[in-house]
């Protein structure tokens, strides 16, 4: 029966080419627009590290002085160096890492290649196993190297390709900021999306090309990038040669992550943070009431409103558009089915049940949806191509994946079936006798 109705639907298309084309076009436009924005939304709101996002946590606390305190305020988004280094030493998580973004100059040892600048990350040894960074050659550095402030570096595949033609460069040296660093590891292509570990800079940008120990970066006063929030201008102790980047500076500028494998450990860590904050207040460093937070990856992304509001707006707009397209389709399907009232009346008189008429009409609607889906897929691909031409830093990620491909067809067929419900119901009401009489 299904095949027969499908066949009838195709015949009906042929009879009413313009009307059918209009419907297919309307659905295709709606589906194309929705799938384009939905794909972008899906990419931007995805889990950057699905295997571990529930075990990685971002602690926050409020290290500021009493001045300017407003109850209910969010705690500082980043960590001071004093607290980060303290917590790193106390090692209360399964793994933990301090980090900051930066920029570093690379002087290639290749004739004719001029020095250039790349994005860098200054972090501690656990960064790599914690975030499951894949290595192509070598390994991460260790806590010992962190402590000794060794000049070691992990570089990206991209930089390795540029400097060493993609060969195994482990053990070789690279000139960073005019200082020789020994390469201990080369990363595989890796692009957590969004770059969740640092929300203060380019959220959808590419991975940094150079990773060096945080301790070393402070030793060499490497250039730090990202947000810095300072308070307490009248601090007596600002005689630190490292200035705002010094251990005692009243400035929050570091990201700190901790891995806690079980919910019980997370609970214990929350308590630890609270105790830590109390201790610091007792010591006179913190002056505000204890206000700590411990967010896992997805919670942290949520707090940071990681999906740009433009993208949310576009998604709403596209679905509004799809809705109008569907209402349009309802109207056109209604016109199409009722135009065939005579034919339906005859079928009913010959014994077709209402249910059969209903199913036949729905199958016709679904077929329209299928055609709209195919065309809509083309439009979505075109739309995503247009998104990729945009200046946004997530632009190059806008590609349709298999699950979105399936979603396109599912959405298209479901939408057209919903649109077909009312017209099919009306068609099914056509009374056999009256139709025959009025002919």
């Amino acid at each position: 029966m299904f095949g027969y109705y499908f066949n009838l639907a195709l015949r009906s298309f042929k009879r009413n080419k313009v009307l059918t084309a209009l419907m297919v076009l309307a659905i295709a436009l709606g589906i194309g627009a929705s799938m384009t924005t939905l794909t972008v939304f899906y990419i931007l709101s995805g889990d950057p590290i699905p295997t571990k996002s529930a075990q990685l946590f971002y602690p926050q606390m409020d290290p500021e002085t009493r001045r300017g305190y407003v109850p209910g305020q969010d705690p500082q988004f980043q960590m001071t160096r004093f607290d980060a280094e303290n917590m790193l030493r106390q090692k209360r998580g399964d793994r933990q890492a301090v980090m900051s973004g930066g920029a570093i100059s690379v002087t290639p040892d290749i004739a004719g290649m001029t020095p250039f600048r790349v994005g860098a990350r200054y972090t501690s040894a656990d960064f790599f196993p914690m975030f499951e960074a894949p290595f192509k050659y070598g390994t991460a550095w260790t806590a010992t190297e962190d402590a000794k402030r060794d000049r070691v570096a992990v570089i990206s595949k991209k930089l390795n390709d540029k400097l060493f033609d993609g060969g195994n460069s482990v053990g070789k040296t690279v000139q960073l900021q005019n200082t020789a660093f020994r390469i201990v590891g080369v990363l595989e292509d890796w692009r957590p999306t969004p770059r969740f570990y640092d929300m203060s800079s380019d959220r959808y940008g590419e991975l940094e090309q150079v990773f060096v120990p945080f301790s070393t970066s402070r030793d060499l006063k490497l250039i730090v990038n990202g947000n810095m929030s300072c308070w307490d201008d009248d601090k007596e102790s600002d005689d630190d040669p490292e200035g705002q980047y010094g251990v005692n500076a009243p400035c929050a500028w570091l990201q700190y992550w901790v891995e806690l494998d079980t919910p019980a450990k997370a609970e214990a860590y929350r308590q630890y943070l609270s105790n830590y904050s109390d201790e610091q207040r007792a010591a006179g460093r913190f002056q505000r009431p204890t206000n700590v937070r411990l967010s896992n990856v997805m919670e942290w992304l949520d707090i940071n409103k990681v999906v740009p509001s433009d993208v949310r707006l576009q998604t709403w707009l596209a679905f509004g558009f799809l809705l109008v397209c569907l209402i349009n389709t309802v109207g056109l399907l209604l016109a199409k089915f009722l135009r065939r009232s005579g034919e339906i009346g005859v079928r009913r008189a010959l014994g077709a049940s209402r249910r059969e008429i209903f199913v036949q009409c729905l199958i016709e609607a679904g077929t329209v949806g299928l055609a709209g889906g195919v065309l809509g897929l083309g439009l979505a691909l075109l739309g995503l191509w247009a998104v990729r031409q945009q200046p946004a830093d997530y632009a190059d990620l806008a590609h349709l994946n298999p699950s979105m491909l399936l979603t396109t067809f599912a959405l298209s067929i479901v939408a057209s079936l919903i649109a077909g419900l009312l017209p099919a119901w009306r068609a099914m009401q056509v009374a056999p006798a009256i139709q025959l009489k009025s002919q």
Partner: protein
Amino acid sequence: MELRPILSTLRRHKTAAALIVLEIALSTAIICNALFLIGNRLERMNRPSGIAEDRIVVAEWTGMGTDEKELAAITRSDLAALRGLPGVVAVSTVNQTTFGNSSWNSGVTLVKDQDQSNLSASVYLGGEQLLDALGLKLVAGRKFNADEFVEWEALQAPGSKVSIPSAIISQHMADKLFPGENAVGKSIYSWGEEPMRIVGIVERLVRSRDNSEEDAHYEDSMMFPVHIPSGRYLIRVGDPTRRDETLKSAIELLKRNSLNRIVMEEDSKPFEQLRNEYYRQDKAMAWLLVAVSAALLIVTALGIVGLASFWVQQRTRQIGVRRALGATRAQILRYFQVENFLLATLGIVIGMLLAYAINQLLMGKYELPRLPLYYLPIGAIALWLLGQVSVLGPALRAAAVPPAIATRSV
């Protein structure tokens, strides 16, 4: 024109009529909001910066493991050399450029040790020529005197007792801090413990980037007299047409002047390019909204054409009878147009209510202002015209129905 027959016919086609009304309502609501959003973006993109945008180029470089003393020396030598380039009017280092990718902000208070700051302002640091390099318009007071300038290294030195003596602030900030008074000569507290005397007011100086912080108005900005070796130069030329050529020679000069650095050629560009890049996304969004609005109008029009054609076909006999009874072609034509006008009006009224509902939602979610009333008639007229144009084809076909058809059975 007798409305009753139209209304009674519509009553017998409730579903189809309701669909058209609904479609028009949704289109009206979406298009009104889309136009409003486009307006917002355009307004944002056209905010004046107060800067001589067409005459400024930005040149950037970065050191390679050079120490601060050396950086300061290179900077001094660069400045002298850049000022010697033909056509160059003023050159200054600057900590942040408007539309650039970094932003320095600071709280400002009127009283020492005040608990909450009065406002947050963007902070520009630079040398003697910064005001001229930006091409700012001084509306009150004076420029910085030579003896007011402090060195960045001295300011940052451990245990430093150096403080910044004065500030030049934007008119907007002056009005906000000292409403109805002359701000020149008054003091503010922002960096350090010492008061800073306001020596001048510029007509307009804006933040380097829009800031989502509360109390962070786009036009609240100030300048401090600090020589900062930032690796970022603002170069202002006298003749805008010589801008690109000046940028090129500036880059060459920087490369020659010291080899121990990286000149960031891809970050060195005319100021107008910085502006374009900063607003690229707004522009893209505005175009997207235009495209969706256009697509919506097309889809709505197609829907009206489709349903109207169906009605004409369904009523062919009825039309024939009316024609046979003496109705003119013009009357038949008018019938369908009035019918569409009625449906469109109902749709537009519902659509406007819906437009406000959507606007309320957007206001809450995206901190948008209220939809101004004048967007509604614009949307209404657009949809009325659209309806009339779409129904014209089917209505003409209806008018062409010969009276003789009344005598035929379908």
